């Protein structure tokens, strides 16, 4: 297959990326502004031998995705704020039972029904801590249509590799924006599949760390290896346990399989940070306005740069730490919410930088001019 250049919507790129990554199961429920993902999956999945099911609600959608993944298919669902809230119990189940799955959350204004057709980045903390209890999770956030394609693949790859739910945190602008994109040739796309147990294992234990990397090999229902899955705390056989040592070991392994591999998981982009006095920390569609503002401010001689987080959780503390090696004095956290990521940035900066917030939560994008105004304001105050 040659070059594939096309005009594409973010939601469409998500489905293309998912199918390229090997998604063969989608269960979902219509919700603005994510609905095109369900519609296109309904149209495209049967053509590649996959299965689309529209479920009766968001809770059921997440349940079906977990079931399909346990049966061996790469599975995804897509939603927005209210649906994301409903899915949370099942997302926690997938974390504990280590079932790979991709959840797309196209963020819209909240809380509650909120602003169904307008953008927001208000689910940053819900994506991390929406389900109860200590748990690991991976959250990544694209800024362009091409990046939606790439990051959907990455979401599947990380989810399969680490047996953890991966959340693709989009927003209404990235989802509905149309851009010219050139898709990579299929041969050049890296695909990671979950580790399967060696056929020779006579006594397969579904949650035993055979390889010492904290990631147990995963059989599929129907492989001929029966195994037990439960949302209760379990030992390596998969059966429930209330033993304190078993509990502690399980939670440590769940966390360590992610936190021991931060370099593999975390991605971020820096623009003009080397000599910057002020760095704007941002993600998603807001990064597009920030990039424009950085360009214009540089023309005026402002020493300003951008740190764009592609991985939101686990939080890229390394990226903030790297800035301590530069001339950076101020950080501005630009996000379409009342101030969520800024708290983690502050904790990460630990007093080394002055941290300012640029927040907008009225259903409108942060404009380049607003970024410019904020940088000037910070410059005056400093």
């Amino acid at each position, binding site marked *: 297959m040659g070059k594939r250049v096309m005009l594409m919507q973010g939601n469409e790129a998500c489905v293309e990326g998912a199918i390229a990554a090997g998604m063969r199961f989608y269960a979902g429920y*219509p*919700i603005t502004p994510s609905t095109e993902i*369900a*519609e296109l999956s*309904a149209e495209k999945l*049967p053509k590649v031998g996959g299965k689309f099911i529209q479920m009766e609600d*968001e809770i059921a959608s997440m349940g079906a995705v977990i079931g399909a993944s346990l049966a061996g298919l790469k599975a995804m669902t897509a939603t927005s704020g209210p649906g994301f809230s409903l899915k949370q119990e099942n997302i926690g189940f997938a974390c504990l039972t280590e079932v790979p799955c991709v959840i797309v959350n196209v963020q819209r204004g909240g809380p509650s029904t909120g602003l169904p057709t307008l953008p927001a980045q208000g689910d940053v903390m819900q994506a991390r801590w929406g389900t109860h209890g200590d748990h690991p999770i991976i959250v990544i956030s694209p800024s362009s249509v091409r990046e939606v394609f790439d990051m959907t693949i990455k979401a599947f790859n990380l989810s399969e590799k680490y047996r953890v739910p991966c959340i693709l945190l989009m927003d209404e602008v990235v989802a509905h924006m149309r851009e010219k994109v050139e898709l990579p040739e299929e041969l050049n796309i890296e695909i990671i599949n979950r580790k399967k147990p060696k056929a020779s294992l006579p006594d397969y234990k579904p949650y035993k760390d055979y390889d010492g990397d904290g990631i147990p090999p995963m059989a599929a229902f129907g492989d001929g290896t029966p195994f037990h899955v439960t949302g209760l705390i379990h030992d390596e056989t998969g059966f429930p346990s209330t033993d304190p040592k078993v509990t502690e070991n399980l939670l440590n392994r769940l966390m360590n399989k992610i936190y021991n591999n931060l370099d593999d998981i975390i991605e971020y982009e820096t623009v003009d940070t080397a000599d910057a006095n002020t760095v704007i920390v941002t993600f998603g569609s807001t990064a597009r306005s920030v990039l424009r503002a950085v360009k214009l401010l540089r023309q005026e001689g402002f020493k300003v740069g951008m740190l764009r987080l592609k991985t939101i959780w686990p939080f890229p503390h390394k990226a903030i730490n790297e800035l301590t090696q530069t001339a950076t004095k101020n950080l501005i956290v630009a996000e379409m919410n009342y101030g969520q990521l800024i708290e983690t940035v502050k904790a990460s900066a630990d007093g080394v930088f002055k941290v300012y917030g640029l927040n907008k939560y009225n259903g409108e994008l942060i404009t380049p001019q607003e970024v410019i105004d904020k940088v000037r304001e910070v410059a005056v105050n400093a």
Partner: protein
Amino acid sequence: MATLKELAQVKERFVGGHRLCAGCGHGISVRMVLNALGNDEHVVVGCATGCLEVASTIYPYTAWNCSFIHNAFENAAATLSGVEAAYRSLKKQGKLKEDIKFVAFGGDGGTYDIGLQSLSGAMERGHNLVYVCLDNGAYMNTGIQRSSATPIGADTTTSPAGKVVPGKQQPRKDLAAVIAAHNIPYVAQTSISSWQDVHAKAKKAFEVDGPAFINILSPCPRGWRYNTPDVVELSKLAVETRFWPLFEVENGKWKLNKKPKKYVPIEEFLKPQGRFRHLFAPGNEHIIQRIQEEVDQRWLALLERCGEKPELPPR
């Protein structure tokens, strides 16, 4: 039974100026139901997320001339359960004197699917409220996705008709029967093609002591793809082809309200609708036949439930 002249003078609780589409069945249904209330009666309306809520409440306007609460997609019945239970408590404490009626409106998505649990709970607990489902057979508000009320063969964005799969494959959920199985005082299915039928059923629903459920077929010009002035005509065809029979269940007793005089084939209902156009392409005759068999089978089962002789109308 009120005359049309009398109905025209009833206080309107759902007024004009809303933004429902031309040729939509929702506005007609809601007015017909609410007009069954007396001029002096108080009513609280609950509304699930959907076209009705979106189109009738756009800031700074509202089409609701009464108390109105929109909660989420799945919990209109639960929210109204709380309102009604609090009302009963206040009344018992002597803090409220007036009688108040409670009515919830939901689409088929919010009723057959995501809101079914909430509706079932409200019916079983016996709250004195009326739940009205405006069934247009798909999720129209989000852009025409299939629901469990979508008929076999219909083309929707998540059951797209193509070369291999000719639209939705599964038959409709029989919601009226599901709700009737809760053994509540009143369940009815009605159609805006007969204002007398809607009026009489809404009146009964408001008058019974305990939960009542009404299912109204509400054609959607965007999802069904018909000529907008034909909304009532299409509702009539739904009844005549027995796709949407008119019946009621009072305290467990099923009663048929209209028996078509002759056998009208289902094509008459399907043909004016773009969502079924592919069924009339050569090679798809068997799907129409399947729909017809389904309609006939359900009709015979309904007659049996109603204690009538199970026979098809004369051809």
